[in-house]
């Protein structure tokens, strides 16, 4: 456990060094991975999942991926856009009119 804490601290410091604002850090628990992952010459079966909410310039992404790739404690890394809470406009299934079906293009 102190190793995970140290790894997290390293990551957050690296992020802040490059000028990112860390908003939130969530621990999604430690569970057994869905499939065995081999990384850094080791086959991993259990891992801890952490979610870091970050506000950062996009130029940070590649150097950070590099940095995390070199870290042995990190098994898998990913940068995902924060999903904006969009308006709940789901108006149900609107049946397509026959004219639409005539001129429809298969996309």
């Amino acid at each position, binding site marked *: 456990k102190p190793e995970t804490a140290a790894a997290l601290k390293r990551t957050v410091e690296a992020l802040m060094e490059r000028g990112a604002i860390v908003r939130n850090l969530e621990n999604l628990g430690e569970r057994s991975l869905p499939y065995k992952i081999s990384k850094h010459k080791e086959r991993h079966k259990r891992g801890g999942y952490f979610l870091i909410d970050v506000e950062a310039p996009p130029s940070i992404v590649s150097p950070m991926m590099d940095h995390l790739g070199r870290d042995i404690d990190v098994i898998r890394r990913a940068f995902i856009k924060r999903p904006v809470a969009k308006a709940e406009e789901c108006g*149900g299934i609107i049946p397509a009119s026959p004219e639409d079906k005539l001129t429809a293009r298969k996309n």
Partner: protein
Amino acid sequence: QPVQMENPYKDPPKRCVLCGINVDYKNVQLLSQFVSPYTGSIYGRHITGLCNKKQKEISKAIKRAHVVGFMPVMFKNPQFLTDPNLCNIKY
């Protein structure tokens, strides 16, 4: 004289199962409900019965969950095997 108006007896538009529910790559349970328990493949629109948008969102979330290691790829997580069935599939 008849008054022109919109059909007052019209049914409200049919809603799919996920209408109004936010789809996230993190809730593996929801995502696993649209995946085959034997092969782990994502069910098509004719099986899940979801609207266009939601089907796309689900499939993108499932693929993302595969990549970041949240959801197993070749099978369904056995923890979620006894979930209520949302898709009209007959084995």
